[in-house]
């Protein structure tokens, strides 16, 4: 009976393992091609190899590039290269996302709509254009959306945006059309390193835990899972990540919260203020001489 479906499918999503992302942007291209998304900014940002800038109406996958010169081993202060020489990190874990030789660490991560368990965009949508599919994903119906823009301000990840010249809001559908046809989303299919893994969320979470344990065993103490369980502010995500630094380094919020969690107090304040206004008006109108 999940979300009112008589016959719900298992919840599906992405596990994006950024430790094996090579920054090829095949996901971005495959997404644009399959979903026929209009082209976006073709300029150069100077932000490493990232010229896509962010997620938005016309960018449903965005590969972030972060160049760092930081000690990898927090205890010893060694660079990753040294750590790799010491522990054979590359051979045993497959972590090879770093420039060799100069101690420069290069983080890459393909960002996407998180398809939150508690999705603020869906909850604030006044028209019902945003809905939860039978796969547990969050999708905008373009024939219903009237471009009110509430979801844009509600999303704690800055995923949704209004498309210029169109007026409606667009975002990742987790390839709803392909899911209905038992195919994996275009980005996951195109990913050459399996950094983007598609599957049932329960199974992906297990896989993510194993990967995290493996990396930590191999000395990658900065590895962490992001949005991979129910104990965060959005009840977990359908699309979650393995990161090698704090979320904000990738442009992700460290503690995203679905604003609905505060909706009770918000309505209470609204009601109290309305009552106070009523009382104030009565006092002012009848209180004079």
């Amino acid at each position: 009976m999940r979300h009112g479906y008589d016959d719900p499918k298992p919840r599906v999503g992405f596990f994006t393992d950024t430790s094996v992302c090579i920054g090829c942007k095949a996901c971005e291209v495959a997404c644009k091609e399959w979903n026929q998304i209009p082209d976006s900014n073709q300029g150069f940002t100077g932000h490493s190899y990232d010229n896509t800038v962010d997620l938005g109406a016309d960018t449903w996958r965005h590969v972030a590039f972060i160049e760092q010169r930081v000690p990898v081993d927090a205890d010893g202060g060694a660079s990753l290269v040294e750590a790799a020489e010491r522990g054979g990190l590359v051979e045993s874990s497959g972590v090879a996302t770093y420039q060799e030789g100069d101690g420069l660490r290069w983080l890459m991560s393909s960002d996407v709509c998180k398809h939150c368990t508690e999705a603020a965009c869906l909850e604030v949508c006044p028209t019902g254009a945003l809905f939860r599919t039978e796969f547990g994903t969050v999708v905008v119906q373009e024939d219903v959306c009237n471009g009110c823009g509430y979801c844009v301000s509600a999303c704690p990840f800055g995923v949704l945006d209004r498309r210029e010249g169109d007026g409606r809001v667009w975002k990742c559908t987790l390839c709803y059309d392909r899911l209905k046809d038992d195919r994996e989303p275009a980005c996951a299919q195109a990913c050459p390193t399996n950094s983007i893994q598609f599957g049932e969320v329960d199974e992906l979470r297990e896989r993510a835990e194993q990967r995290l344990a493996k990396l930590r065993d191999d000395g990658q103490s900065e590895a962490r899972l992001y949005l991979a369980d129910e104990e965060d502010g959005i009840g977990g995500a359908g699309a979650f990540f393995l990161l090698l630094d704090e979320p904000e380094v990738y442009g992700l919020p460290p503690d995203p919260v679905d604003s609905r969690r505060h909706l009770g107090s918000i309505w209470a304040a609204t009601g109290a203020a309305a009552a106070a206004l009523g009382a104030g008006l009565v006092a002012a109108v009848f209180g004079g001489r």
Partner: protein
Amino acid sequence: MSEDGTRSYYGQPVIKEPVWSPEIPAYLFTGGLAGASAGLAYLAGLRGDEELARRAWIAAGAGVSASPLLLISDLGVPRRFLNMLRMFKVTSPMSVGSWILSASGLATSVATANAVTGALPRAAAAARPAAALLGLPLSTYTAALLTNTAIPVWHEARGVLAFVFAGGSAASAGAVAVAVTPPRHAGPARRVAVGGAAAELIALAAMERRLGELGEPLRSGRAGTLNRLAKGITLAGAAVIGARAGRSRAAAVAGGAILAAGTLAERWAIFRAGFQSAADPKYVVGPQRRRIEEGTARGGSRQAPRLASA
């Protein structure tokens, strides 16, 4: 890393700035004006101040007429405005507000039409209390609309913003009524104007204290300038009304106009501050990082693996 120690991705925003245009702060004003004017008109009518009641109904009618036009004009696809009434969703203040505005618009229009023409006495008798009552949430639900978002300065003001808007609504309704009503009939309107302005300024001070560091967008940049300006104008308008509007029609018109402008400017300042707080990642990341450091939230990430077998 920015100078205050917040880490970010090339200083880029974490969340999107709102896509809302200046129609929205204008609506925050017209909606509040309509809502509180309906209450003022109804109560003035009960008190027997027909001159004041009629003018306040006209102000309320003007407010509820302008409001949907402003809202529709802000939509990405204006011709789909009726989709707002496809469903009623309590999780969406915009949905709730669309219904409040629709119902209040209907009731207020009937009451206003009768106040002007006298043609609908029986319908108006039912419409007047309904419009007055619906005007209260119409004045304050917009605070729920703004605070139920990821925009830091709005969301963190969630306990207080509704009171700012309640005060501002009363102030604007009183101000407009003072400006258009002969002074000898406008006593209640003057008290509503001055009392509303005082309530708005007090609630604003409480809000800025509550926001603490996060209130910076209300003190800096364009929103900061607007905020200071708005408070000054509001204070000046209320002072003119309080001191002179009882005796001088000219002072009433000037004071009413000044105070109304002040409440409009305050809505605009709060609106713009939201944009400023969305644009700078330090306002988004900073408070979240603090929640994690203080231990009040675990945050989105976890470094310890959870293995079924281990």
